[in-house]
């Protein structure tokens, strides 16, 4: 008992002593109360779960905070939920949208809670890819006409006696079952189910030199790690994908764009003007995406690095 009391007293004294030194909370005024905040206010920016999007969002958020004094609230959301947020007033902007004609119809045309805010300058490509070693070893594989020749090599435990075409991320629209059927390819579409699964599969394919053909897309940070080679499917022409069941051509090039909530656009504040003016190239995005994914910088640090290296581009956005 005595011992306990003693130790307790000792601990308390020690604590009290150490407490005397150290910086007190409230000694220094809280940071963050910058002058421009009133003009811009709060800017709710959706962050969809892929690195390319995060790069766009990081740079826009950085400029909005540093140059415009906005209070940026980033919200990590899947696309569908982010669009829903326009209606409920919880999301102001989506800054990399891949197509999503159904959502545009629903939220822009029907509910009128969202409006388009121009292109991001990035072009999205969707298609079938193989790892570089395959393209080097079998140069004619990039022509779809030769795919049946290689079908046996792509056989896996999932594809039975056909070649496996690894499809993937459920967020992306795919016509691959129709394509396989209409191009009379001896392949079976296997659904990997996530971007992580696709990337891991391509990584293993290159490392182990195992054959793999799968669905992928650019811009994507992984391509700076491994330059996948695209298969040339029959060329896309306007309207060739009108009937989903009869598609026999490549995917169209996606012009990635920005979507904002109607309220946000009508208010026409500085953050909206920035979002509307924002545009950059695939190379720009890939660079910031690389800072985040490979160099493991935080989104904010990655944005800072790019913004400081590209003052002219930033100035151009702000001038509009």
């Amino acid at each position, binding site marked *: 008992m005595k011992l306990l009391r003693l130790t307790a007293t000792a601990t308390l004294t020690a604590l009290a002593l150490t407490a005397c030194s150290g910086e007190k909370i409230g000694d220094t005024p809280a940071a963050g109360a910058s002058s421009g905040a009133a003009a811009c206010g709060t800017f709710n920016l959706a962050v969809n779960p892929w*690195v390319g999007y995060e790069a766009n969002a990081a740079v826009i958020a950085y400029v909005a905070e540093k140059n415009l004094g906005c209070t940026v609230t980033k919200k990590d959301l899947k696309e569908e939920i982010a669009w829903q947020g326009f209606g409920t007033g919880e999301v102001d902007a989506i800054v990399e949208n891949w197509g999503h004609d159904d959502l545009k119809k629903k939220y822009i045309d029907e509910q009128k809670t969202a409006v388009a805010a121009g292109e991001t300058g990035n072009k999205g490509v969707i298609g079938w890819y193989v790892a570089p070693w395959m393209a080097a070893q079998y140069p004619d594989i990039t022509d779809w006409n030769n795919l049946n020749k290689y079908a046996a090599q792509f056989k896996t*435990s999932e594809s039975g006696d056909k070649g496996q075409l690894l499809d993937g991320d459920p*967020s992306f629209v795919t016509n691959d079952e129709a394509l396989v059927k209409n191009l009379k390819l001896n392949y079976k579409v296997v659904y990997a189910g996530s971007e992580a699964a696709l990337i*891991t599969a391509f990584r293993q394919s290159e490392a182990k030199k195992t054959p793999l053909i799968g669905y992928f897309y650019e811009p994507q940070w992984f391509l700076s790690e491994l330059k996948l080679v695209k298969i040339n499917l029959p060329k896309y022409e306007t309207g060739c994908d009108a009937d989903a069941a009869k598609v026999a051509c490549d995917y169209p090039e996606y012009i990635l764009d920005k979507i904002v909530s109607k309220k946000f656009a009508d208010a026409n504040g500085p953050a909206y003007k920035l979002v509307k003016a924002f545009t950059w190239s695939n190379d720009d995005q890939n660079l910031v995406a690389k800072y985040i994914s490979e160099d493991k910088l935080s989104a904010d640090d990655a944005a800072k690095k790019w913004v400081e290296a590209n003052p002219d581009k930033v100035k151009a956005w702000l001038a509009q």
Partner: protein
Amino acid sequence: MATTTAPLQRTWRRPGKPVLVAGVLLAWVLIWLPARGLHTLGLSPADLTPLHHWLNDVNDTVGANRNSSPLFLYFFNEIRAAVDSLVTFLQDLIAQPSYGRPVPVLGWLGVVAVVAYVSWIFAGWKPALLAAAGFVFFGLQGLWEESMDTLALTLGAVVISLLIGIPLGIWAGLSDRFHRLVTPVLDFMQTMPTFVYLAPLTLFFLIGPASATIATLIYAMPPAIRLTAHGIRSVPRSAVEATESLGATGRQKLTGVLLPLSKRTIVLGVNQTIMAALSMVTIAALIDAPGLGKTVIKALQTLDVGTAFNAGLAIVVMAVVLDRVTTAAGNRARQTGPASRFRKPLLAVFGIAAAVCAYLSHTYFWAAEFPDDVSIGSDLSKGADSVAQWAQEDLSTATGALKDAVTYALLNPLESLLVESPWWLVGAVAVLLAVLIGGVRSAVVTAACVALLIGTGLWQDSMTTLAMTIVATVMVMALGVLFGVWMGRNRLADRIIRPVLDAGQTMPAFVYLVPFLALFSATRFTAIVAAVVFAAPVAIKIVADGVRAIPAATAEAATAAGSSTWQMITKVQLPMARPSLTLAANQGLIYVLSMVVVGGLVGAGALGYDVVAGFSQGQLYGKGLAAGAAIVVLGIMLDRIARASSPSKGSN
């Protein structure tokens, strides 16, 4: 186990059940051979049925009317505001800068001190030390703020779960009718994949802490209700009758007898609710839930296994700490021995110490923000990274062979039997098996389930998923028996293996998906392995408890009679632990089904993929919902058949 002799006596009247079951299976294969590929009700991933379209329309209508409907204005918005303010308050308290200060009200020192103090009061010395060490570990990992966000959200969800769950549980414990009514609802809440209701939730409760909390509590509340009801129902009749004879009122009966006697089971319910809430951390992050889940999801985007592992480890540590503290508190609730004479003075001394720590952490930076120069987080990440890297490079050939062996020998034949059979054949076999194993009642349930599966329009996907579920459950049971018997017989083994099992149950699947994908490719087998990692711990724990519960006298008698270890296990321990084995199979199955969606992320296709795709693409929403319903139906069907075959009718 008096029933073991019964089948012998019956054999002279009609063939034994095993023979009949084998006969049905044989007939299935014989009909399957010519009928292969007929009436398989296939539906390609991009195709929809009218039901799916209708569900889409319902969803759209709700979204379009959200801002005008009085239901939203006065009901859902009020709930949202209340839940939001509770969770935000907890975050302000321990996690986020608040009240105009750059730090939360309580800093790390205060939180550690208060947690240790509270653990000591309710659970004792050891859990208190564990809790303090665990919380300091979050700081060392460099994840203090994230961990506190997760803790705040989990606490919020648990508090609400208990506020609603315990009264409902008491009601279900007292009223048979309500119990019958609520059980299927709880089954539904626990097996319906979260992905299905995540998007609609944000429509009802907006994006933010409220939606995340409500998503969590939908999954976390059922154990509180079930175990409270179970506890009250298990109070001995004699105790209740004794109070009744003394003329106690209903209220006196409840507070004087029922609640005190079921206290331990109720605490177990609290414990299970906490575990369930923590298992939702990563999924809730998909709708902007703050905390560790976000770190895991962000790391997954760049396939950063190390960072994901670090955050996952924090979740495991939090789960282990909360589990040990609540379990110890539950055990203490049972023993009401005289308190030590040191207790009162210590209570005061430690109380003052905790208060001082809290004050310091409120006032000084050094006690508020965890010093970041002592971080071991990046070392942990690097370590995990290099282990994963090594496994992917050096093991993947061997693991690939294992995958092929299981897939070709077991999974593909089973799947082709289930998927390529006409629907009426599979339906007939299921109903016949239900009659043989469970009797007429389970046959009726099974027939209804088959009809519902066809109704969802996803019959073929359901069969593919069923094949994987069966293979995974068989593997879970093999591991359950193997490790369960070992742990049941050997205390040391138990002590070493148990933390590994805890980690398997609480480590978010998103953390180990990437290494698994590297080892087994994007295949159905990967999905099976992920399910086994999650489900085997439960089965192992239940079997171990069952083996240990066998009276020592029985085991001694067998040893005295000269049984070898092998005879001991096969002739005494396993037969006597049979109720536990059945319960283990049942729980293992439910846990396997709850991993179907995760399986969809790693190449399982079928229902899991349908749910994931429905979550990701608006036009597939209805199909995802139907797939979620199909998973629930599969669960009910398998559970009812398995439960009927159990002599103990375990109702957990």
